[in-house]
């Protein structure tokens, strides 16, 4: 089928350049969400393992909400909710103006919230795997609690949490497909446009699915490399 290769070629005739742009959007969304989700997830885990009951409760509420809501619903609530909220605020200062909320930022916030809720559970179980003596040892040699966390606990924590976080990264990569529903031109959206224009739906959605598979395979190679590097550090100590 020569036709198929034309459709998948680079340039005005084919759709490869459009799909490549979609890959760029998907990957950059996932990469932009990762640090935000990790940071918030770590803070939530800190809250959930603290001795202060109100802080624990606050953390638990956060995880219950964002693990319980469907990702798509979270996305819509953030996207439309932010739109309405910002609109209302803007109306006060400049009536008559309309504001479009950036779908990339909305996607980042929603996916970051979901990611961090799951990540906080991973971090929490990692915290529980670290014996109390590690903290006490840190205090005994005169480190402050911040230093103990940074120099003693965190290096061990990362090593324990890594497999769980790697799993979450793969889930995040798959969840980015949802942003196509709020109009972000990711892989799936571009494939959908191509399918509608050319009427070759099966071809383009297969390509899109296979691209996700390739991204997952590349990620697992990366994860393996990181895990090997980290475990080598473990041996040296």
């Amino acid at each position, binding site marked *: 089928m020569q036709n198929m290769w034309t459709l998948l070629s680079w340039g005005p005739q084919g759709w490869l350049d459009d799909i490549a742009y979609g890959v760029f959007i998907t990957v950059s969304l996932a990469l932009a969400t990762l640090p935000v989700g990790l940071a918030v997830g770590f803070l939530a885990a800190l*809250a959930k393992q*603290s*001795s*202060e*009951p*109100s*802080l*624990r*409760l*606050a953390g638990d*509420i956060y995880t*219950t*909400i964002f*693990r*319980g*809501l*469907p*990702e*798509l*619903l979270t996305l*819509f*609530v953030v996207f*439309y*909710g932010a739109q*309405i909220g910002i609109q209302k605020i803007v109306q006060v200062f400049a009536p008559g103006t309309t504001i479009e909320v950036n779908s990339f930022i909305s996607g980042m916030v929603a996916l970051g919230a979901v990611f961090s809720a799951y990540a906080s559970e991973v971090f929490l179980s990692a915290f529980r795997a670290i014996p109390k003596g590690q903290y006490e040892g840190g205090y005994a040699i005169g480190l402050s609690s911040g230093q103990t966390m940074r120099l003693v606990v965190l290096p061990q924590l990362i090593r324990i949490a890594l497999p769980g976080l790697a799993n979450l990264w*793969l889930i995040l990569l*798959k*969840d*980015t*497909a*949802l942003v*196509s*529903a709020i109009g972000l031109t990711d*892989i*799936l959206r571009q*494939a*959908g446009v191509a*399918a509608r224009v050319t009427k*070759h*739906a*099966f*071809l383009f*959605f*297969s390509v*899109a*699915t296979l691209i*996700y*598979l390739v991204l*997952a*395979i590349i990620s697992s190679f990366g994860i393996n490399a990181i895990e090997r590097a980290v475990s080598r550090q473990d041996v040296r100590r």
Partner: protein
Amino acid sequence: MNAASDTGTAMVDRPPLPERTWTRQRIAGHLIMGLWVLLGVGLVWFLVASWDTELFKKYAPGYVSGLGVTLALVGISIVIGAIISVPVAYARMSKNPVLSGLAYAYVYFFRGTPLLAQTFLVYYGVGSFKAELDAVGLWSFFREAFNCAIFAFSLNTAAYQAEMLRGAIESVPRGQWEGAASLGLHKMQTMWKIILPQAAIVALRPYGNEVILMVKGSAIVAIITVYDLMGITRLTYARTFDFQSYIWAAIIYLIIVEILRRAIDWVERRITKHLKR
């Protein structure tokens, strides 16, 4: 008289509990809790302020039917997926490299790609095979978005369930198989009476999580025009531009997931009773 003097040891006054001071953690905790409470009150206030009996009467039945569609979708997919997962798990554990390779490829494909992409592939892609499907009489089945969703979801959850099943069965020590064999039980009996009851304890939590993930994942069928809970919500929002339609959906989803989570905890406590001291 208290217990200390009964046993003859000297009475010692407990040191008073250290007074609770306003540490940074405590302040932060109260601040964040205050934010949550504010958010909750704001939400309730929003729902009360925008309450409209006419609107409720008009759209509430839709939500009930949407909830029914969501539960049906999840229930049917989970059951079909469970049936498919058995041969897949069997193939995955077999010593035949071709069979286990095929099963591995199946599992890898469905776990490595987004459910939304799989659903689109089935729903939109099936049109490319209209002539072939018409010939075998399956076209009327795949024309319905609901059936396409069931098809995609079943294959997807089968891949996850096959891995859980395999993991659970392999977690049972070899000695159990050998012990059963030495008692003269054949393979099916061993599997049914010895291995599966032990595997069930290991598999329960992952299976429960899979059900929860399916309930949440099923929201995506709204994009392919199935009127499940999410689909009804989008429809209601499109008609009324009233943001409370999303809030109600969120509340319903949270309730379902919480009920499922509690139920799993309860079942787990029940079936691990003999393991607790």
